[in-house]
């Protein structure tokens, strides 16, 4: 068994067989995926990393009693979703700053951490400008639509897997996905239209002629 991660492979089965390489490859390949998953659910950068660590630890410790049923990726995201719910419950009992919402924690933590091997701020801004419009539009969706979109479109889980993961009927998954896509398209089109209007309102610069010239 090689150490190359593939979404169709099961690293916990490999662990049970005594081979940790696949699990390590899974960690290397998917740690940023899970971090992005948590961030898109409104968790800050630092806390997202903690949640990612919790998820992988739970997966690793679950290896002894793990019984594969369905795709491993769905199982992993189920663990991730439960970790996110636990975190939300803990947060609900803690006092929160007035006006602070789920997405604002990320704004707080932007300046909190600067890892030594992080991309430069310019690079981050450039990348975020390209992908930020989708993510910012996604942040405006409801939590249920956002979750279904993330799992179905980005993680490419099947509707049945999403249904079991979120413990909702498949029809609800289908309905939420439809509304999520429709709303997302609307938001992105509005965003494009607003950018075009802003560009049209900017007057072109005219050269200033010296007074002695008629």
């Amino acid at each position, binding site marked *: 068994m090689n150490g190359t991660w593939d979404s169709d492979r099961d690293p916990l089965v490999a*662990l049970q067989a005594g081979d*940790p390489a696949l*699990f*390590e490859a899974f*960690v*290397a390949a998917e*740690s*940023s*995926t899970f*971090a*992005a998953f948590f*961030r*898109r659910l409104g968790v800050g950068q*630092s806390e997202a*990393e903690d949640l*990612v*660590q919790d998820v*992988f*630890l739970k997966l*690793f410790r679950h290896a002894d009693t793990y019984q594969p049923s369905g795709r491993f990726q769905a199982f992993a995201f189920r663990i991730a979703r439960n970790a996110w719910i636990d975190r939300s419950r803990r947060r609900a009992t803690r006092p929160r700053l007035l006006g602070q919402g789920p997405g604002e924690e990320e704004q707080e933590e932007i300046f*909190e*951490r600067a*890892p030594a*091997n*992080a*991309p430069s701020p310019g*690079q*981050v801004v450039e*990348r*975020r400008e*390209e*992908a*930020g*419009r*989708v*993510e910012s539009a*996604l942040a405006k969706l409801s939590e249920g639509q956002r979750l279904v979109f993330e799992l*179905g*479109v*980005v993680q*490419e889980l*099947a*509707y*049945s897997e999403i249904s079991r993961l979120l413990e909702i009927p498949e029809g609800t998954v*289908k*309905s939420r*996905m*439809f509304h999520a*896509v*429709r709303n*997302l*398209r609307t938001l992105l089109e509005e965003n494009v239209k607003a950018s075009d209007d802003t560009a049209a309102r900017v007057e072109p610069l005219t050269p200033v002629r010296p007074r002695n010239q008629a």
Partner: protein
Amino acid sequence: MTAQDPNWRDEDLLAWLLDRERQAEDSLASFEGDSQTRERLEDLDGFLTECRSELREESRAAGDGHEDLQQRILASTTREDVSWRGDLGVFGGFLRHRLHASVLLRVVAASLLIHVAALPVLAYFGWVAPEPTTHIGFEFPKDLPYREAEPEPEFADLSEELDSAQEEAALDSLLDGGHADELYRGHLRRFGLTELAAQAGELPADTVIWANDLGLVLRAEVLLNELGAVPEGRPYARSAHLDFVVSELEACLLRLGSSELKPALRRLAASAWLRAHSMGRAQAVAELESRCPNWVSEGLQVGRFLKGEDWVSAFERALRETPVFPKLESLGY
């Protein structure tokens, strides 16, 4: 609903696009007969693909700084060191992560480090510093000529106290009035030594005479006069001063022998005796009486002049009532 069904809703097309299980049954090619549905499907697929790729690109971009996270995960899972080194590594990783994540924590850690580093330095300076010395003592005011061992009781005004200034003036008048221009001749005349006073005019004015007989007598006189300067409210101080006068008079008597200054000395002794009586100092009286025989009549002369006959009579009556009177009678009084 299958691909051949013309009544596809967007919801169903979406489900077909996203549901891998459904795609296993039908393929995109199955929609070739329905161009409109195919167009909608391609449009949806294009949109979803664009969203997916952008979001995954963002994930990859954000994941550039996740090596540390991956190492932490592996250190806690497949590469976990179950020995004490592993525990230290986990703890160290936790500390590094937390310090990296919080500016406030870094400030607190730096402050703690500075304090811990400064502690042995402060301890060293405290160890080598000399011990503070403690001085316990008493300081008496400088203007006090005597030191009192006990708190002074309050006494009523001492009566019948001889005023040394009055005594001096009276003695001067006994010597045909006037004072010598110089202190030396003036003192001689005051003691009734007129012949010596006449010779004194040949001596330099600033001659220090304390070493000779007259100096001794003068010194005793000065001491006795200073008794008046001790406040009346300080009986112990006055008592100590009187003791000092008595000892000086004793020394004078021993030195003078048969000096012609003895009459002057006897007068001083009488004066001291009177003062001792007025102060109730029996010890001083006894000292004077033992050293200066036959001075009582001379002392009474002074008293007679200063206080009058009535006083002398009262004094004699009181004298007879004192315990020392038998001794005086034995001395020939």
